[in-house]
Each structure stands twice: as structure tokens, then as C-alpha cells.
């Protein structure tokens, strides 16, 4: 009789499992906390969009916006065309900065944005944006290095020289009334001011000059502050996904009934539960040492395969012959120590077959092919049968 007691329970309790895992749970909590902290600090609530007025990262432009605001310019950040339009109450005293790096706006939206304010600064426009707003200008590829002010524009002359990192533009229509600045040779300019009936339209390619990283270099600050601070109001418009109007036609999500997604989620949960149901083991495995399994006839079979592989026909046949002669000796009534010749003679006498024939089968013949081996083996069997029937006629 073997008894168990309270100490025999092997399965750990939930409490002990938790206690054992406490260190790792604590570590995980600390790690997640650290991760969150890093994320919060790095983002600091601002946007991560390039040249955004609320982005304090090197690629943002918060420094510029803050300085402008400190000097009495009312800076308004807009994230959609509607916001921008709403922010502009007095177009004549407003500068609109438009930087659509994500190409969210359509042509018509671009045209509308360009006509919103008296002064429009279009930063780093793409081919399509230029075509929609200033078809008389064309793109001229990237520009780098410092650029000298080479025009009469106040902002440019005050700046003297700026960081040229960004893009250059070219005038396609020579009849247009334009002021070109910061030339990098080959009629490529980084700043082009057009005179429109509605007001001033400026295309600015030196994006680097506006960023937090480079704003303090060269005359960057002077250029940016004069360009954007010329009016009382500044609307800092960077288009976002909010500007994208809904595509026409229903999507897959519109067509699926509302219960499909929850049902799939429920079935996934059920599948998980099913896995836990089937996967939970009913107690640990019981260990058992298994015995080795060696079949004794394996050596015999291995030897047979060796004979076969090396085509040892004569050796194989001799083994069969020796075995047979050993069996024939008592049948023909010879003593155990008889020689092969004696056996051959008595077999020939008993079976009344020619001596040479018996000798060939039992001793002499060497098989040159597998066919001959099979034939000789058959002859051995026939001979044995003949001897047995001759000795014991029944």
C-alpha cells in the first residue's frame, strides 16, 4: 500500500507560478515603461512631418515658426484645405506657405490653394504641382551647396547667401514677368517670384534652409523670416490625408455585412480555445527505457547482401555445396569423416548418373554469371532430391 500526502502534488499552484515568474513580469513591465518613455520623449507631442511648424526634429521647422510668432506674425498651422481657407480671413495681409511633399492635393485643390492668399510661397513643388499652379516654370533637378543672392528681392539681398540644399527651377515661358534668385548656373534658380494679378507667387526650392537643422546657417534665417514674415498673418499649410476626398464606388469593407469581422474574430478565439483544449496534456509523460531490438538473422542477411553486391558467385555456391554434402553424408550412409571424392562416388552410384556429371555439380563447375548460379543451385536441389528418393523410395 502506497499513500500520497499534500506534499506529493507535483503540479505547481497558480500562486507559485506567479511568484516564480514575478521577476520576468517585473522586467517586462519595466521594459515596456522604458519603451513608452522613449517614444513619448522623442515625439514630444509634435508632428513628425518634414517642415511642419510643430516639428522640433532636425527636419522640422518649429524654430522658424516660433521666431515668426515671437515677432508678431500670427502663425496658423493648417492640415487641410478647409482649415487653411478658414484661417485666411484677410487674403491681402496673409502669406500662405504650401508644402505638399506627400502629393495629397489634386490639381483643382492646388489651384484653389494657390488663389487663397495674396502671397503664396510654394515650397519644393513637384512637376504636377508646378503644372497646376505655375505652368510657366519647370523643374531643373536637385541643387546643393551655398547659393549667393543675385537679385533685387529684399529677402534675398538681406540674406546674402543661403544653403542651397533642395531643388532648382527654370523659366519655360520667357515672356513671363518674374524675379529669379539664387542661381546655380545654367538658368537654374532656387527662388522665383512671379507677379500675378491676385498677388505674389513665390516658388522656393531651398527646403534645407527652412529646417531646424540649417536655419541658423548662413543667411537662411534672414531669407525665411523676410519671405514669410512680410505679411501680418502666416498660414502654414501642409496637406495631410484629410485632404484626400473619398474615392468613388464602395470598397470591400462597405460590401461585407457588419457581423462578418466579429464572427471571424470569434471563430479565431474559438480556434485558439480549441488548440488549448487539445494541447493541454493530461499529466506528464511516464518515462520508460526501451530495450534494444536486434534481429539475430541480420548478420546472415548482411552477409547475403555482401555476396550479392560483390557477385561472389563461386563462394556462395561453395557454401551451398558444403551444406548439401554435409546433409548427403548420412543419407548415403558414409561416416562423418568421409572425403568429398567418396561422397561424389557414392552419389553417382546411388543415382546412377555419370560420375563426371555429379562431380561437375558438386565440385567443379564455376558459375560465370548469375544465370549459371541459379541453374547450378537448381541442379543441386534436384540432385539432393534424386539421392533422397533413391535411398528412401517411399
Amino acid at each position, binding site marked *: 500500500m*502506497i*499513500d*500520497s*500526502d*499534500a506534499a*506529493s*502534488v*507535483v*503540479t505547481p*499552484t497558480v500562486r507559485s507560478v506567479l511568484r516564480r515568474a514575478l521577476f520576468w513580469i517585473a522586467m517586462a513591465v519595466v521594459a515596456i515603461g522604458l519603451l513608452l518613455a522613449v517614444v513619448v520623449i522623442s515625439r514630444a507631442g509634435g508632428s513628425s512631418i518634414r517642415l511642419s511648424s510643430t516639428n522640433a526634429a532636425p527636419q522640422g521647422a518649429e524654430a522658424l515658426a516660433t521666431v515668426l510668432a515671437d515677432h508678431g506674425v500670427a502663425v496658423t498651422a493648417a492640415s487641410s484645405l478647409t482649415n487653411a481657407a478658414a484661417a485666411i480671413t484677410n487674403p491681402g495681409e496673409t502669406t500662405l506657405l504650401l508644402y505638399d511633399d506627400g502629393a495629397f492635393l489634386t490639381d483643382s485643390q492646388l489651384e484653389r490653394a494657390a488663389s487663397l492668399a495674396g502671397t503664396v510661397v510654394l515650397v519644393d513643388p513637384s512637376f504636377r504641382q508646378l503644372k497646376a499652379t505655375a505652368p510657366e516654370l519647370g523643374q531643373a533637378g536637385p541643387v546643393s551647396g551655398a547659393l549667393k543672392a543675385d537679385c533685387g528681392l529684399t529677402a534675398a539681398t538681406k540674406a546674402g547667401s543661403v544653403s542651397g540644399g533642395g531643388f532648382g527651377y527654370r523659366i519655360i515661358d520667357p515672356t513671363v514677368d518674374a524675379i529669379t534668385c539664387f542661381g546655380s548656373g545654367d538658368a537654374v534658380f532656387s527662388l522665383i517670384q512671379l507677379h500675378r494679378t491676385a498677388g505674389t507667387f513665390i516658388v522656393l526650392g531651398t527646403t534645407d534652409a527652412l529646417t531646424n537643422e540649417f536655419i541658423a546657417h548662413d543667411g537662411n534665417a534672414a531669407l525665411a523670416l523676410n519671405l514669410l514674415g512680410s505679411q501680418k498673418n502666416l498660414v502654414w499649410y501642409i496637406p495631410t490625408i484629410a485632404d484626400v476626398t473619398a474615392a468613388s464606388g464602395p470598397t470591400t469593407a462597405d460590401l461585407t*455585412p*457588419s*457581423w462578418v*469581422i*466579429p*464572427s471571424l474574430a*470569434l*471563430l479565431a*478565439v*474559438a480556434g485558439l*480555445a*480549441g488548440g*488549448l*483544449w487539445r494541447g*493541454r496534456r*493530461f*499529466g*506528464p509523460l*511516464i*518515462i*520508460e527505457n526501451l*530495450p*534494444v*531490438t*536486434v*534481429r*539475430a*538473422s541480420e*548478420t*546472415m*542477411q548482411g*552477409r*547475403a*547482401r555482401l*555476396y*550479392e553486391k560483390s557477385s561472389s558467385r563461386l*563462394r*556462395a*555456391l561453395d*557454401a*551451398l555445396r*558444403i*551444406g548439401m554434402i*554435409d546433409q548427403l553424408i548420412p543419407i548415403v550412409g558414409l561416416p562423418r569423416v568421409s572425403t568429398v571424392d567418396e561422397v561424389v562416388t557414392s552419389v553417382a552410384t546411388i543415382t546412377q548418373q555419370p560420375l563426371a556429371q555429379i562431380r561437375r555439380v558438386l565440385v567443379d563447375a564455376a558459375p560465370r554469371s*548469375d544465370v549459371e*548460379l*541459379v541453374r547450378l*543451385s*537448381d541442379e543441386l*536441389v534436384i540432385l539432393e532430391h534424386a539421392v533422397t528418393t533413391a535411398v528412401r523410395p517411399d
Partner: protein
Amino acid sequence: MALSGWFVLLVALGVIPIVVTSAPITLVLWLGFVVLLAAADLLIAGSPRQVRLSRELPERIRLGETAHSRLLLTNTGSRAVRGLVRDGWQPSAGAHPTRVRVVIPAGERRAIVTALTPFRRGERRAAHVTIRSFGPLRLVSRQATIRLDGAVTVLPPFTSRMHLPSRLARLRELDGVTRVLVRGPGTEFDSLRDYVRGDDVRSIDWRATARRRDVVVRTWRPERDRRVVIVIDSGRTSAARIANEPRIDTAFESALLLAALATRAGDRIDLVIFDRRVRGRVQGATGAELLARMVTTMAPVEPELIEMDWAAVPGLVRSVTSHHALVVLATSIDAPGASHGLLSVLPQLTRKHTVIVSSVTDPEVRAATVNRATRSEIYQAAAAERALLDVTRVAAAIRQLGAEVVTGTPADLPPALADAYIALKAAGRL
């Protein structure tokens, strides 16, 4: 904790309210409902940790027979435990049933009977009992594994005991017969009796006849109180299986039959199981105790993957007896190379003792020599003839060194060894 199939079904059933209401919030509500039910079920379920166990078990059982293990479960908790119990036996213990449904009200006790039909010799163990206690809704269960050792010794089957009655009858025939060779060294004088027709005239005791005025013959009985030492090789060659039985098991069967026979004949049997060290030893036991001790000693012995140390065997036999004995070496004689160790020590043994070397032959090899239909079969027949020739050569060498050789298939070897013993006894060579 463990989930049940009902829990999975209940979760999946949530599809119905979700489709009917078409509201995503139903998913959350349904999952909350299911979790709440499961938590309630789990709380109400009786604690499997509070179950105390005890086991009643037969100590030993013969291979092929069935024993019953009784597992008593006492619920010392405050709530009823209804659930599933698994008694953890090793697979080869052949336990049935392995999972039992049981309901144990608080403070009560229930018994589970497991039938054990082991299919391997040796010690079969149970390690632990696992209990799954379900709540009233059978959605979730609490599970605990409780350590509870149990072991049953599975003895060799001794199937060859069916040959015992016929061999005992032959042994009795030796008793009291008048012998042709009355001057044989081993037979002992038993008694005088009246001559009946048919008795050998050479056994007439003339002196007694003269005294009694009636023809009297001497009767003889086989010698008694001889020593028989059985040495079983548990080395690597004994692990090989012939007709799905390891050689060592056949050796055990032969040893048991021989011991049963010899102890009835009044001889003393000693058993040693040896490879490089003594794996089992039975000395000084007689009668029923001898067989019981032999099977208990044999039960846990498995062949070791090491070479038999034949050089130590003469010393081993000397440690058992210093007198003349019948030494039975149960080993295998396969190839001249492998039997070198045996051949080198045989002279030391045969100088003092009568030695029998018993070995199992493979019926497959004999059968392979006859099948010669295809090319591969001819090569196989040749290899089989070669193997038989090797055995014959080793057997001849053993006989030349003065020992007897007994070979046979696993079924034939035990009676063949018994016959060899009876023949030696009849010849008075013990």
C-alpha cells in the same frame, strides 16, 4: 487549469447572437459572458489537490497474466470532485483503462481498478496520478498531478513448464530401474527386490539370492545431491532476438525448466547471470523457493551492450562450488571469432566439471537455406549455409574440448536441455 470541448463549443456558438444582432459589440459581450461562466465553473469545481491517494498492488506477476491495481481516492476537500482520473503507468505495463470518470463527494472515498497486462518483463512502474476536476457546467477543469509511485515486478513467463510433467515422468522411470551398466560410477544402490521376468540377469545379486533362496535383483536409483551450476550470458549477444524473443529470455526459460526438473530429482541448483559483473545470483535455495527466487532474480535483468567476460567464468563457478558439478553455459555460439573467449576457458571447466553449452538457433536461418527461387534468395541461402557451417564448426570445437552442445529453436531449446540433463543423469555423469 484545462479547457473542455464544451468551452470551445460555447465560444463558437457566439456566432449566432453576432449574426442576429449584427453588432460588433456583441462579440465583446459574448466573450465576457463566456469568461464569466468559465470563471464561475472553475470556482465551484472541487480541488484535485485535496484528493489523497493510495494504491494496492500485487508485488509480482507473471508475464502474460493480468493483475489488478486498486487506486483509492479520498476527497479531503469541501466540495465534490467530479472528473477524470489518469493512473500514470508505463506503456509496457499494459494498463487498462487509462482514463476513468469518477465522482467523489466531499469526505468520501472511491476506488479505481486498473487491469495490468504487461507485455515486457522487468519492473513496470507507475509514477503519478493526474486528476482533472470539472465544474458543474463542465466548461473548464482544475488539473493536478500527484506523485504516487507504484511498481510491479513482471516475472519471466516460464511457458516451458508445460514440458515439465513429461520430463518428470522420464526422471521417475530412471528411478528404480535395473541398469544395464550397474557398475556405472554415478548410480547409487537403492534396494533389493524379487526377480521378475524381463529383468536383466546381470543385475541379479547372487549373494542375496543365496541367502534368500529366491532370485533377487539389485535396483538402482539415480544419484542425488549433485550440483548443477547454470551460468547465463547477459552480454550483448544475448540481446539479439530470435523469433521475436531475446536470446536471454530463451536462456531463462531453459534455466527454469532445468531447475524445476533438477530440484525434483534432488540436485542442488545454483544460478549466476553474468556478463562483466554478476547481474543476478541464486544460491542455496531448494524446492518451490528456488523457482520463486530464480524468477525474481531474472525479472529485472536485461542484456547489457558489453562483451561477456569468459575469463572470469571459471573463477565464478569455483566460487559457487568446489566439487564436481554440471555447469550449464547458456550463451550463443555464432561464429568462431565471437566464440574465442568461450573456447579458451572451456578446458579449465571441463577438467573438473561436466559442461553443457546451450545455444539458441534461428529457425529463419534454417528456412533460408531451402528457399532458392530467385537470385537474392540463393545468395541468402548461401549466407545461411555459411552461418550454419560456422555454428557447426564452433560446436565441433566445443565437443572436442569435452563439453556437450545443446542447440534448438526458442521453442525447442528448454526441453532439449532438460533431455540432455536426463541423459547425463541416466548415464551417471553428474
